[in-house]
């Protein structure tokens, strides 16, 4: 295929790039203790929460931004970011969907979020986070009947302070890393899920995050707890409007699974990736960690990453419980000038703990992608097992793929398997499909989806379809 043709095909438009025109209550750029006090006050938080934030902030001030990732971006000016933005609305929480700003609903509609009856039909409860405030949480009532708490983290701080005090920051400590510390200081909203002992959450839970204001950072904080024998499947989807400035997104997600609990956390991330010259786009620095605290507990991360200008993300599992299981299934797609340094950490502490890693990276355009994975087996993790498979697919010859596997094995009874492949999307495969009458674009989409199948089949059904569609959009014409 001619290079010129390829380049022409690689260009595509970001389909979620619209800005919602509503008045918002935005804090001027800048970060100091007053900013944090403002956020905490705005959210009506108790004193202990403010102290917690300030402690995180003071630790953050002493920390340095990490530079070990295989990423290249100009320094971030943390004083140029606004740390709070909320759509204007009455002070009271909205009681029903009718009270929600119609423009806001329109935005969600454009994003295809099933908030109304569609949600009921799909059986999906949505906690929609618009900039910094959780707009509405559907199905809260139904879930409460089952004993499941699903609300914004701000509400949880008010309504369930004991649970927050018990669990917040216990998986990702405030000073865990630079971005986690920043998040701990300024997080504005996010989701809280609590599934009590013996309860299987009756529906898939889902959150869509969306950055709307210019120059705002989004710092959401998610905490999911499953008590003994509890189960939940949670999906987050992310989009952001098209802007020339880079926007910062530094989230923290903490999962806690007690004895025999199972948490399945799926992400479809489609933040604005910037234009073809690398102008604009989201900087995505995320700390996601699951703590398999209980015996036979299981945490499964599934992610489909197609967006962001910069991605720095390593959903991890701390496998403390005996026979606990950690899983990581990932598809990362980069196109244009996107850069992604992503992977996972599996830390085996408990005896008989097992982990599975299946990472698929697809690079197109002039993008650069790295898989970085750590498998650590502790001295007490007798009989621990890990299986890692990481495959890279290159489309065209101007992109890059790198693999950085790390292994720290402190136990001779451990079994570690690692498989890695790098392949170029085959001219022969393309020709084969096209010579059957299938268009080049459909052929690429078919081959890439085939490549990702192991991961897609881990996604909840309705989202697997969405993921395939998203992949099609991202790679529209990225043929080589």
């Amino acid at each position, binding site marked *: 295929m001619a290079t010129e043709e390829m380049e022409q095909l690689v260009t595509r438009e970001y389909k979620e790039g619209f800005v919602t025109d509503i008045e918002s209550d935005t804090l001027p750029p800048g970060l100091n203790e007053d900013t944090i006090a403002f956020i905490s006050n705005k959210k009506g938080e108790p004193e202990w929460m403010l102290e917690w934030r300030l402690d995180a902030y003071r630790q953050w001030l002493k920390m340095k931004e990490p530079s070990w990732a295989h990423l290249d971006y100009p320094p971030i000016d943390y004083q140029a970011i606004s740390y709070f933005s909320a759509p204007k609305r009455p002070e009271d929480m909205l009681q029903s969907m009718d009270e929600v700003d119609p423009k806001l609903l329109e935005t969600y509609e454009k994003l295809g979020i099933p908030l109304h009856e569609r949600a009921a039909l799909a059986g999906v409860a949505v906690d929609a986070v618009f900039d910094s405030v959780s707009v509405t949480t559907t199905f809260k009532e139904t879930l409460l009947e089952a004993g499941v708490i699903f609300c914004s983290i701000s509400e949880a701080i008010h309504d369930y302070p004991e649970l927050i005090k018990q669990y917040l920051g216990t998986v990702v400590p405030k000073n865990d890393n630079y971005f986690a510390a920043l998040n701990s200081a300024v997080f504005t909203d996010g989701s809280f899920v609590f599934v009590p002992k013996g309860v299987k959450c009756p529906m898939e839970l889902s959150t869509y995050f969306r950055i709307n204001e210019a120059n705002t950072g989004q710092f959401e904080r998610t905490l999911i707890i499953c008590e003994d024998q509890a189960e939940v499947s949670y999906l987050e989807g992310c989009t952001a409007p098209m802007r020339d400035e880079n926007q910062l997104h530094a989230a923290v997600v903490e999962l806690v699974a007690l004895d025999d609990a199972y948490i399945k956390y799926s992400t479809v991330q489609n933040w604005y990736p910037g234009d073809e010259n690398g102008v604009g786009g989201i900087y995505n620095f995320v700390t996601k960690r699951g703590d398999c605290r209980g015996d036979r507990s299981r945490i499964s991360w599934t992610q489909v990453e197609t967006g962001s200008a910069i991605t720095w993300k390593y959903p991890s599992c701390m496998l403390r419980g005996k026979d606990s299981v950690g899983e990581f299934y990932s598809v990362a797609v980069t196109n244009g000038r996107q850069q992604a340094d992503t992977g996972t950490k599996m830390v085996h502490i408990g005896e008989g703990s097992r982990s599975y890693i299946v990472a698929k990276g697809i690079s197109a355009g002039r993008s650069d992608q790295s898989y970085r994975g750590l498998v650590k087996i502790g001295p007490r993790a007798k009989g621990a097992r890990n299986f890692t498979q990481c495959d890279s697919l290159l489309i065209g010859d101007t992109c890059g793929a790198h693999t950085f596997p790390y292994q720290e094995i402190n136990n001779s009874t451990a079994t570690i398997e690692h498989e890695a492949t790098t392949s170029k999307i085959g001219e022969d495969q393309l020709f084969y499909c096209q010579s059957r009458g299938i268009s080049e674009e*459909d052929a690429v989409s078919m081959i890439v989806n*085939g490549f990702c199948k192991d991961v897609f089949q881990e996604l909840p059904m309705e989202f697997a379809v969405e993921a395939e569609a998203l992949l099609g959009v991202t790679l529209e014409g990225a043929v080589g």
Partner: protein
Amino acid sequence: MLEVKDLHVTVEGNEILKGLTLTIKKGEVHAIMGPNGAGKSTLSAVIAGKDGYEVTQGSITFEGKDVLEMEIEERAQAGLLLGFQYPVEIPGVKNIYLLKSALNAQRVARGEDEMPAPEFLKLVREKLGYMKMDPSFLQRAVNEGFSGGEKKRNEILQMLVLQPKLAMLDEIDSGLDIDAMKVVADGVNSLRAEERAILIVTHYQRLLDYITPDKVHVLVDGRIVKTGDAELAKELEANGYEGIEEGSAA
């Protein structure tokens, strides 16, 4: 139906076809035979539109249309279908999905509706039975882990489902044992129809014991040096290509 006129093709600067002329009419079965390196596979690859082949002179027309101006998929949609000597594996893509996508892409390109799923399944099951293939084939990834014989059967299965106007079979007999060859030959024979032409490219005569061609062409060094009927293939079997080359030089 297909007219190839004075075709010159170079691959990486080497001229492989040096003025090949060939006419195939509806309903005919043609066999192109020749020694290794004569350019047999090049001809079918160029007709199908594979990258890396440069046509420096000559023309290919199919039902009056200039094939060289058409995209790869347009050629297939027009009814030109190539059965590969070495079909590639496409991990994770189910065979049935490829078949369905291909069939519907062709139908839509011809302005027809997509085939309803039940009808499609019925069609595929019928053809599968014909090729003595287990239904589990449909759920396996395209060619992945298929034996040589399974791959070739799969190529013919696609032909039976897609029903091209001109079926081109590139060394479809290579690597087949006698039983598999019979199944493949049966499949090809069932494709024979008044409205359809078949072009078989082969090194050996043995496939032609099962599929009787209307015309046999001998391709040597980029040109067709002799054309005859099925008897010519037998002659080749007895005397080898060298005899023909001498004959043509005389």
